[in-house]
């Protein structure tokens, strides 16, 4: 039996080629994985740097990734060595590649056998392997080639390096290095700065408002520069708008606070005062009626001076005393009327008459189950502010009464015609009391006015702060923007969401001033319609027919179903009518007989139907 050395020689040669090809293939796969991983991680690091600046600054990714790359390549080498094919397997591959009818591999496989057929097979294989032409053709049959798509891995690696070096991405360094001279960015910064400065200036101008916004003012001041952490004009606009919204909400709170509500209650109460005949008291009453605390304070001062001077004749003095007395009475009555609280109770669906008794209101409020917590809180605030307004009104009324008695006493002059010290003390006390109430009212009015003005400025600032989004810039008219689109109308629109928010806030304010609560109503209070239809088929047969015609206009029926549809729906009404008529004539019976004419109801299951529609499968 001959030696298989020539075959082994071929096998070794083929094995080298196979191994080289395998290494190339695995390198290509490893390069693909490494390249893809590198690219993903580089892109991720660029993105993550925006949230975690230290990550980008440290730059430890690159060495790690290089290490990973080398590890991948080393693994590929190890795997290649681990999959060493056997001699027979290599010979089999050569046989397949060169179409040798498995002569080499069979010779290798039966090398240990002793029978003549095995010997013939081995000799045949050896003879074939000894042929020089086989060695020559081996190179052509098993070429070592670069694997397909082997360029993808290196390309991904190059791409990753390019991204690393050339794409600024979201890295903080890139943001800091961004040109400050960018006109759009600079304009946005400038506008935001101006807006915030204007608001701050207005807050500083009003000490009362400044005092009320004390907790928010430092925050506003600390974040003067909204561009600190921002990168794009849009973000600056959004941040400015957000701050304006916050301030606007705070101002809403101020305007709905106890102070302003108390002022409002006082105004409401004083609005029904009748002016007297005396010019000084008339001026005082008119000032109180329109809620002008400053004018009322001046008028009160004049009244007190007039009384203290004692230069009035008797008739004037009596007139003034009478007017003051009536004014004091009117104010006292106004204090007792609790008009504002009455309206608040009625708006909340409670009995307005309860307003005359505060304790009863509180008890009713505590016992009420129809009001929610927010409504109760609002009413409690109204009670508090009403109490506060009443107290102030009573003080004012008392002050007027004192002035009246002073006036009646003729200014309490001494015998030498000069005012006595007692009368001076009484004058001073009444004046101070009135002055205190009126100055408090004046401060509240100033606070309210400043808050309203600032709120309006903030709202306009929100709209200004929100520049048109990209969509509205594209659209031009700002109509098709959707949530990001512009407001309806010409121009560049603006952020639709903010504009709508401002509009809604404005409407809420308007509704509040009318003192009418909006009560939501359940639109559908019936149980939902579920289950099978119980409509009379005869009644809706015409609708079905029409519906079919309209439906086929919109959505054509496939040609092979056209006749079926036409017959089914086209003859439906006629058939139902015929069936119903038959049912009426024939009385109750089977499905063919029809149901009693009095109850031609049909459900979709058709269980007790007489005028049951023909099924889709039934022949017309």
């Amino acid at each position: 039996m001959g030696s298989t050395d020539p075959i082994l020689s071929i096998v070794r040669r083929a094995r080298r080629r196979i191994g080289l090809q395998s290494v190339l293939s695995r390198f290509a796969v490893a390069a693909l994985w490494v390249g893809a991983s590198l690219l993903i991680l580089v892109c991720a690091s660029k993105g993550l740097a925006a949230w975690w600046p230290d990550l980008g600054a440290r730059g430890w990714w690159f060495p790690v990734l290089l290490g990973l790359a080398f590890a991948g390549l080393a693994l590929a080498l190890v795997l290649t060595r681990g999959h060493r094919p056997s001699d027979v397997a290599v010979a089999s591959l050569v046989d397949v590649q060169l179409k040798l009818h498995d002569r080499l591999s069979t010779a290798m496989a039966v090398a240990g056998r002793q029978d003549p057929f095995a010997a013939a097979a081995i000799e045949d294989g050896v003879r074939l392997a000894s042929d020089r032409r086989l060695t020559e053709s081996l190179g052509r049959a098993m070429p070592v080639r670069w694997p397909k798509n082997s360029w993808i891995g290196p390309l991904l690696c190059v791409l990753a390096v390019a991204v690393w070096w050339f794409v600024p991405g979201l890295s903080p360094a890139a943001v800091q290095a961004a040109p400050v001279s960018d006109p759009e960015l600079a304009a946005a910064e400038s506008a935001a700065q101006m807006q915030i400065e204007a608001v701050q200036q207005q807050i500083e101008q009003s000490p009362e408002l400044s005092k009320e916004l004390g907790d928010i003012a430092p925050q506003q001041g600390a974040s003067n520069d909204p561009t600190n952490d921002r990168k794009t004009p849009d973000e600056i606009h959004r941040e400015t708008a957000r701050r304006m919204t916050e301030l606007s909400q705070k101002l809403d709170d101020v305007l709905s606070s106890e102070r302003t509500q108390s002022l409002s209650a006082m105004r409401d109460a004083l609005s029904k005062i009748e002016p007297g005949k005396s010019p000084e008291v008339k001026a005082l009453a008119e000032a109180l009626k329109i809620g002008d605390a400053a004018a009322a304070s001046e008028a009160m001062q004049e009244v007190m001076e007039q009384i203290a001077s004692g230069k009035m004749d008797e008739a004037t003095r009596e007139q003034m005393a009478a007017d003051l007395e009536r004014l004091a009475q009117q104010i006292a009555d106004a204090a007792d009327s609790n008009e504002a609280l009455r309206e608040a109770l009625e708006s909340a669906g409670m009995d307005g008459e309860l307003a005359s008794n505060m304790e009863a209101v509180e008890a009713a409020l505590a016992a009420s189950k129809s009001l929610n917590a927010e409504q109760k809180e609002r009413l409690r605030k109204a009670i508090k502010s009403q109490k506060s307004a009443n107290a102030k009104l009573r003080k004012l009324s008392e002050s007027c009464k004192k002035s009246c008695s002073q006036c009646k006493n003729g200014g309490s002059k001494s015998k030498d015609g000069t005012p006595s010290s007692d009368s001076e003390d009484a004058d001073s006390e009444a004046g101070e009391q009135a002055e205190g109430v009126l100055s408090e009212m004046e401060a509240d009015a100033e606070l309210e006015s400043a808050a309203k003005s600032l709120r309006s400025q903030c709202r306009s600032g929100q709209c200004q702060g929100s520049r048109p989004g990209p969509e509205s810039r594209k659209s031009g008219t700002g109509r098709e923007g959707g949530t990001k689109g512009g407001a309806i109308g010409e121009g560049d629109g603006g952020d639709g969401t903010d504009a709508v928010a401002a509009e809604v806030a404005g409407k809420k304010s308007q509704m509040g001033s009318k003192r009418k609560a909006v009560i939501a109503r359940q639109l559908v209070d019936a149980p939902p319609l579920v289950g099978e239809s119980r409509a009379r088929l005869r009644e809706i047969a015409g609708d079905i027919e029409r519906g079919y015609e309209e439906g086929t206009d919109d959505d054509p029926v496939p040609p092979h179903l056209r006749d079926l549809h036409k017959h089914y729906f086209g003859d439906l009404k006629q058939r139902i009518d015929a069936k119903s008529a038959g049912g009426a004539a024939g009385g109750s019976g089977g499905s063919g007989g029809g149901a009693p004419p009095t109850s031609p109801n049909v459900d979709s299951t058709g269980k007790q139907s007489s005028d049951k529609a023909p099924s889709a499968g039934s022949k017309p």
Partner: protein
Amino acid sequence: MSSADQLQSIRTSEDVRAACEAFRVVASRLREEIGRVLVGQEQTVTSVLVALFSNGHVLLEGVPGLGKTLLVRTLGQALGLRFSRVQFTPDLMPADIIGTQIVLDDPRTSQRQFAFRPGPIFTQILLADEINRASPKSQSALLEAMQERSITVGGTTHKLEQPFLVLATQNPIEQEGTYPLPEAQLDRFLIKVIVPPPERDSLNEIIERTTGVQSKDNEVKPVLSASQIAWAQGLARLIVVAPHVQDYAVRLTLATQPGGAFSPAGMEHLIAVGASPRGAQALMSCAKVLALLGGRAAVSTQDIAAAAMPALRHRVVRSFEAEAAGVTTDALVQQLIDATPRELQAAGEAR
């Protein structure tokens, strides 16, 4: 010297080569002799010879007029074997094929006794013409003869003379009134051969031969005896099959099993029933004969791939999806051949 003695005398590789060459020569002579009558159809003739030397049966499928019956008759004449033909019809009974017991009067004893009258199956080459026209009952009368090469009638088993070869024909069209062969019956056929229509040159020659003057050269003479056939069949059993080549046949057979470890991805839903172990046996038997016809003493994966189509096409049952999609069994088998790698694969490298 009997065929067994002749085979035992093969002791050296030289003897093997000589035997292989003798086999090739015998096959060539037989092919030539058949070619005197049958024009073209080389592939069909080769397939029939493969079945003959593999000791298997052949199912020939083709439209009428392609020479199926002529091929079988010519083969019988060329082999010098006894030849019978049974035309299968719907009213054919099993007794018409295998024979029946008849009552005979014994003139000497004046007694009556049953005697077996053999049917046409008691022959060496049986042409079952249009086998799918007979009822399954009659078709199944062939089962024992094809598998066991014996017939049992009235409790007595009768051995059939060797070699015994059944060549059945069926028409793929005119399916009305036919009884498709059951899977068990189909599995008994070693190979199924699709007889193609003749090519241009062949058809020209057929016309010349059959419509012109009859030549004596076209008469067939016996060129092979039964013992020579037995020797060739024995030689085919002896040739070498390397383990990895046999494994290829196994993988190819297992690939026909839907959802099996070697079933190619995406073909599970196309096959309802795969080939049985008998299919793998048929595959290997045919491959061995193909190797000998190629003058080689060892089977190659190419031989197995070449034998796969006739040996497996009637053993693979298409699924409803495949039928609906118009995928033929031949296309399925070809896909399996293409999808099964021929090179040696380590265990566990399925798919």
